[in-house]
């Protein structure tokens, strides 16, 4: 099969999104099944791409209109993108089933459209090879995210959405300025070519451009203190959307930041930017964990925890070493699985018991055993208990961090992890050893989804080799810029 079919990854959600009103016109009940169908198709496409990339070992370059870069816009589906596009699709597929249980508020057709567009935006951000195209996908992602945050139509949701919008708006404006500076200085928007030419860039322009690009993405990537919107948005958004935020939207931002960082590594101020990101990432972890400590709303608590884990990833990606990037990517995968699990389970509890307040979790072990078990496994994994997946990536991150000489950063994030352990374990005690209540019949489909994710957590925990190999290849994709340049068939303009 031709590699160009990979453009289906963009095409399927985009076209389907436009078809939603048509489907709705046919039957309102068909909207949700339609979502399942589309995400299934997307997952299949992504799985094919994934298989293709990892078996051939070569990235798939999709050139729009057969124009060769840098004249034409290209998609670059390397090891990283193949892996994450698959994760995006797979998680979306699970969520499309989850939607049945959790989305009761009208208008469902709008929700379905936004859902697909959010998936599209994240996919695009990960897959694109063009910096302005990246901006476009980023805007698609964030605007749908603003809308979805407000979807629950409560006052809190509106407020959260507004905060998100203001901060996100500022961030993307600066990102755009950054693009302008880079373009003004180099005359190209193709990432491979930027990488090629970055060394010859005007020093001041390069510094300012890099800093603004990272600054803009840091808002999406939830780095402290630019993440102030996140807890509110996570809490207010519908449960499936929260899962999407945590599992891949933020990852797309992180990936973009990391990609831009590494392709511009010949810029003079590169090491200072890295150091700044390390500091911000460390603070992200620290502040988020402490903020979660006395949180009474479990969903918000896990939101803080998610932010802090993102800080972990950012720290690893900003180390500037192969080991760091590999560890960061590994942690991204693990975090996507674990946080999807936790948010799905907590959202489910909130739906069944009318809210995600801590009180509702009393006696959950007896009331909803499968959900409780899932939350337990998820929590233990996040804490970093061995035999669960996060243990391995945390270990890798710490080893990589100290290896670069940031012992203080490692120490601080570990202190934060102690705090994390405390609030998760308190939650577990509430779930298993306090209170009691009537048994609630749990949905078989959701139970299956959660148990699937639990199984993944444990399988990766016991046998991490396979995923670690994937992560290593994906990490090399980001880190090895020379290879990246070589892979993109540049037309030879301006070089």
């Amino acid at each position, binding site marked *: 099969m031709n590699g160009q079919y990979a453009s289906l990854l963009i095409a399927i959600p985009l076209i389907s999104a436009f078809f939603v009103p048509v489907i709705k016109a046919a039957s309102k009940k068909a909207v949700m099944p339609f979502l399942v169908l589309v995400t299934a198709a997307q997952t299949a496409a992504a799985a094919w791409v994934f298989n293709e990339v990892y078996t051939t070992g070569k990235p798939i370059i999709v050139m729009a209109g057969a124009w060769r870069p840098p004249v034409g816009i290209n998609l670059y589906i390397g090891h990283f993108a193949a892996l994450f596009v698959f994760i995006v699709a797979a998680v979306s597929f699970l969520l499309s089933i989850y939607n049945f249980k959790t989305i009761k508020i009208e208008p469902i057709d709008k929700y379905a459209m936004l859902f697909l567009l959010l998936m599209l935006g994240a996919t695009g951000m990960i897959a694109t090879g063009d910096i302005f195209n990246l901006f476009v996908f980023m805007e698609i992602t964030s605007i749908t995210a603003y809308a979805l945050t407000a979807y629950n139509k409560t006052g809190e949701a509106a407020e959260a959405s507004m905060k998100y919008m203001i901060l996100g708006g500022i961030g993307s404006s600066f990102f755009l300025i950054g693009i302008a500076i880079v373009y003004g200085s180099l005359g190209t928007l193709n990432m491979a070519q930027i990488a090629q030419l970055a060394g010859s860039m005007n020093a001041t322009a390069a510094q300012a451009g890099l800093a603004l690009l990272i600054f803009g993405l840091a808002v999406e990537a939830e780095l402290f*203190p630019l993440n102030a919107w996140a807890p509110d948005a996570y809490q207010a958004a519908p449960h499936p959307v929260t899962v999407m935020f945590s599992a891949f939207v933020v990852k797309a931002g992180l990936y973009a930041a990391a990609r831009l960082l590494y392709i511009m590594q010949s810029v003079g*101020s590169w090491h200072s930017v890295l150091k700044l990101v390390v500091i911000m990432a460390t603070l992200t972890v620290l502040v988020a964990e402490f903020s979660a400590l006395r949180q009474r709303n479990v969903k918000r608590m896990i939101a803080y925890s998610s932010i802090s884990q993102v800080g972990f990833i950012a720290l690893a990606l900003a180390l500037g070493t192969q080991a760091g990037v590999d560890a960061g990517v590994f942690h991204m995968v693990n975090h996507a699985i674990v946080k999807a699990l936790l948010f799905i389970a907590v959202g489910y509890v909130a739906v069944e018991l009318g809210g995600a307040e801590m009180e509702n979790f009393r006696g959950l072990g007896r009331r909803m055993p499968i959900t409780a078990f899932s939350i337990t496994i998820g929590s233990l994994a996040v804490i970093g208990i*061995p035999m669960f997946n996060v243990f391995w990536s945390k270990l890798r991150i710490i080893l990589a961090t100290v*290896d670069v000489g940031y012992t203080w950063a*490692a120490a601080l994030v*570990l202190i934060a992890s*102690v705090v994390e352990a405390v609030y998760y374990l*308190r939650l577990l005690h509430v779930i298993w050893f306090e209170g009691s209540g009537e048994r609630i019949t749990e949905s078989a489909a959701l139970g299956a989804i959660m148990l699937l994710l639990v199984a993944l957590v444990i399988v990766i925990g016991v046998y*991490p080799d396979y995923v*670690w190999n994937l992560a290593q290849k994906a990490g090399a994709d980001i880190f090895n810029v020379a290879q990246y340049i070589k892979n993109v068939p540049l037309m030879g303009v301006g070089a």
Partner: protein
Amino acid sequence: MINEVPIILFVPIVAGILAWVLDVKGVRELIGLAGAVIPVAYLIKVYPTVADGKSITYALTLGSFNMSFTLNTMTWYFAIIGAVLGLTMALGMVSTAKSGYNWLFALMSFTAVLGVFTAQDFVSFFLFWELMTFASFMMVLKYNRHASLKYFILSVIGAYAMLLGIALVYARTGALDFATISQVFAKDAQLTGLSGMGYHATLTFSRTDMILLFTFFLTAFGVKAGAFPLHVWAPDAYSETDQSYTTFFSGVLSKAGVYGIFYVLLMMMGAKLYFSLGTFHGHPLFLYIIAWIGAITVVVASFLAVLQEDLRKLLAYSSVGQVGYILLAIGTGTALGFSGALFHVLSHAIFKGLFWLVTAAVILRTGKTRFEDFGGLAEKMPITFAMGLVAVLSLAGIPPMAGFASKWLIYEAAIQAHMPLVAGAIFLGSALAFAYVVRFLYSLWFGQRPSDLDDVKEAPAPLLVGMGILGILNIVFGIAPGLVVEYINKLFRKPVITGNYYKMITPNGTYNALSVTLVLIAGIVIAGLLYVYGARARKVPVTDTYQSGNPVTEEYNLSIRRNFYRPLAEALDFWLKYSWDRFYERLGQLSEDFADVLRKSVYNGNVQSYSWYLAIVLLILALWGVL
């Protein structure tokens, strides 16, 4: 042929999972017991191999980390102690464990401890270390949230300190396996020694590195061993769980800390630490610090043990104190001291394990834990009492019990190492040990029995078997300490302590356990003859005593069970005002408040201030010179 190591390692956890999944009464006990017996059997089977100085290694690659587990002379010693205690724990749990949950986590910690003891690289060491903490935490969580969290937080702080240490070692050496790292340290130590003499050398580890490493690893192992001032978790955690499990928890898990100090700090980086940190009054500074930590632990924990009002707390503090002896012995820095420490690892495991089994039996049969509720049980549970007495004699260090043999070595080592004040702490500690074991004896077994304990029955058979195993070991290793010493000598590849099975000879001292036993028996026989020669004795009840002429009635219980050592508390009132436990609690409270303040000021919900954050970051970017 599959080698023995993975069987020994993984059978317990598999059995635990099976017991948890099946969770049928009767079946889970059988599976659990099998899971504990098999490692012991296999360890005994490989004894001839390791005793020859050969080793058995099992390697696997996980997450592209090379992990390996080895049974050699050193690791076998710790592993067999762990396995035997694990077996007695399982025997106890047959009677006391009420659910598959207990079996799962108890056997999980069994596997984890064996993993820690046999690991030959830092990844598997850390992995099993965390697993061990987690499993034991779950055993406590079920019974008490506060105690378990205190335990977990301190343990995790320790584990993360260790992780930083491991990462630092990895950053400098690029290796994670013990063999390579040991070589690097050994070479670096030589270079440090040379550069101390004026030669120029590029060192892998700087002095700062070594100070950090020492701090990190000492914290990690100190927490597990329950060393002062990181001991505060132990009394709560040891008491708030299934007491059969505490046999293992206090008998073996604390030894993981000791093993860490012994293996990592001493065998792996000892020489380097010595050259980097220098000496203090002729003692290597790092060992001197360990010795003092041990000495303070002994004294503080023993004093607190004496003043406890709860049976479990008393034994828990006593465990902390006894591990202090081991640290102290390691701190002497002599081969004799190390031998003493290793011997005490064994004897503490068997006598404290015995103590906890006795406690488990008593609590199982009476449902009480406070001294004021007990009394006169010796008549009701004679075998348990006899076993308790053996444990008491061994702990108090009465010749010829195992406890004395190891303590004797520690005395000799500490005094010969010219650490007089540290040695003084042992004297004080052993007097305190006398005091608290008598408390245990008096309150539980003697005096008037509260009427609600009148139909207490003897402990169930499996518990008695477990106690029997440990009781016999206490006596055997007491009379024939040479059995242990001979094995320990193999570790040093030279006879540190000479003599034969019954006799230990150190450079300046001797102890012939057999002759002491025989003379003691002869003495008792002589005294017994006097007794037999005397007139017949008439048996009277405990209430028929001299009471200054006042008649004694059944209504009043005349035994003194509360505040038995009140005068000591009065003498110590100044010191008892301070408590590390309260200090940590306060610290925890403060950090929770800090967390609140932080959250409220950072995530204050005001989008204006959020916008300011963006502006500030931009400003920082500009000031940093990257914008």
